[in-house]
């Protein structure tokens, strides 16, 4: 019984960690490249889940295709987001923040009007359970973890290996220097926003199949993403992966002994402790 439970919790931890990392990578990209606190990431995640639900459950499109389509649609919304919502206020933290908050209000209430706040859920991507050696594991969660990991590795390879990924790194380290070297900061930001939105949409669709969809589902996820970014330290991609794993593990193992709210409250204690000793985050190198 106990090893079975542990196996489930471990898969759950990996699944949660991969979703946290997907969200946190998008959030961190926008933060380090554009200096935008993109609170709208929460609603983009939610909209991604709803689009996938709409395509798969209402229009009856193949669920894998609708996952990809959802990422494409939300990704192209990211293009709009960068061009018309963030670029006009480049470098102005306050106005981009108001813009992000306006997006939260508008998108949340639009979804609320269109679909209502009834409980819905994306059709299961991979139903079934694997049993073996006393451990039973939901295939869905395993698949979610695999997709998350693959996307994460692809993004890291993209940043490390391609020219535009290197440009992203350059801008996040020193934006003025990067611009002086001839890097088109707006083009790089547009690519980053599209990637961030597409990743959020994938995360939203996958989580929408595991848990339920509602217009306010993004809030919790955004908080977790920010927690990962703080814990990792800004400007560290590997750190996001490490912090996501730590947080995913904490969030799946601690509820075994504590209530859900106590888990979150304990998270604050840990972050405060870390800030006291390492203000730059666990893996960051600059304050």
């Amino acid at each position, binding site marked *: 019984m106990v090893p079975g439970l542990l196996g489930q919790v471990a898969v759950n931890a990996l699944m949660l960690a991969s979703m946290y990392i997907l969200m946190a990578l998008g959030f961190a990209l926008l*933060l380090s490249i554009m200096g935008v606190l993109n609170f709208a990431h929460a609603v983009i995640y939610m909209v991604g889940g709803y689009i996938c639900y709409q395509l798969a459950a209402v229009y009856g499109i193949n669920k894998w295709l609708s996952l990809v389509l959802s990422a494409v649609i939300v990704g192209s919304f990211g293009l709009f987001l960068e061009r018309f919502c963030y670029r006009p206020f480049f470098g*102005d*933290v*306050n106005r981009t923040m108001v813009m992000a908050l306006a997006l939260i*209000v508008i998108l949340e*209430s639009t979804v*609320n009007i269109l679909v209502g706040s009834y409980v819905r859920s994306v059709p299961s991507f991979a139903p079934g359970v694997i049993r073996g050696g006393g451990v039973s594991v939901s295939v869905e969660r395993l698949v979610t973890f695999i997709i998350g990991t693959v996307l994460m590795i692809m993004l890291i390879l993209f940043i490390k290996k391609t020219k535009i990924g290197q440009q992203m790194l350059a801008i996040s380290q020193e934006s003025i220097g990067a611009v002086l070297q001839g890097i088109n900061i707006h083009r790089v930001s547009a690519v980053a926003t599209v990637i961030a939105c597409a990743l959020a949409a994938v995360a939203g669709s996958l989580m929408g199949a595991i848990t339920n969809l509602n217009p306010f589902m993004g809030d919790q996820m955004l908080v977790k993403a920010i927690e990962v970014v*703080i814990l990792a330290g800004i400007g560290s991609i590997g750190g996001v992966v490490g912090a996501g794993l730590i947080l995913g593990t904490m969030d799946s193992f601690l509820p075994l002994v504590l209530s859900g*709210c106590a888990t979150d409250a304990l998270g604050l204690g840990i972050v*405060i402790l870390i800030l006291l000793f390492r203000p730059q985050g666990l893996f960051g190198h600059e304050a």
Partner: protein
Amino acid sequence: MKVKGKLVKSAALAALVILLFLLPLFVKQPYYIHVFIVTLLYIIVVSSLRTIALSGQLSVGHAAFMGVGAYFSAVVAKELGWTPWFTIPLGGLAAMFAAVLIGYPFTRVRAIYFSMVSLFGGIAIVNIIRVAQKWTGAAGLSDIPPLSPINIPGLHNIVFLGQKVPYYYFTLLLTLFSLLVLYRVEHCRIGMTWKSIAQSHLVASSVGVNEGGFRVLAFAVGCFFAGIAGASYAHYNLVLTPGTFSFLPSIFLVMYMLVGGSGSFAGPIIGTAVLVIVPELFRSLKEFSPLILGAIMVMVVFLMPQGIAGSVEQAKSMFRQPRQREVHRSVT
């Protein structure tokens, strides 16, 4: 010219305050008075948020400190039977204590990272409130005692239970008092120090300003008033749920401040008044009314870079000689 402008300004302010005092004579519907009470309380909270922002710290977890004040005051009044007149300041002190406690580690991070950490801190506080179910109730705290009756010579015995108008006057006086204190603090030496830290923490600390101490002080002062406003809300509403103080409400507070304009003292007041009262006017639209809020925000962000109050200043400087035009810069 300048003296005349000041006179006009103070006369307009006095007229506004008198109008607010006379308001219950014109507005009879309890619901509208309720809207005004809530608006006034939020004006206190958003102004205190701006006080924190003066020192370069944009807190995105401010509603949580409102919650600390509200719950502390409500629980003490309910469990120990103390009068709310005494527990409301106690609620403010509790919020201040919490602010000092978590403000110190937060001084290690600055600017946008401070915003992220404070957001997270606010959510953690709400979770702690949820965990302490023994006192704060599983689904919410109810049966909070209302403000106890007081006997002011010359007036009748004022009973607060079930009455809107006495609460309105209480809130109005509290708001005026808080705004006066916050205004004085901003324009004394402490406020100047905060602004210097916001402009450049390196320069400020190189001339001997204790940066961490002053930032915690700003956080404590701001959270004290948020706590007082929250406690008053608790003894007015008589029911509390943790959701009132969680993530979205905190974000809305920031929104009120930025839409109003964080550069001037009037900004939070104008922003709160516009963003709370205008959606109420469109209440008949039901679920469409948040869209109006969003439209106002998009309009403000595109047309008024310094918020509503800031654009009034800008319009003024347009009429002046170009040479005298001031450089406008937001606080944060």
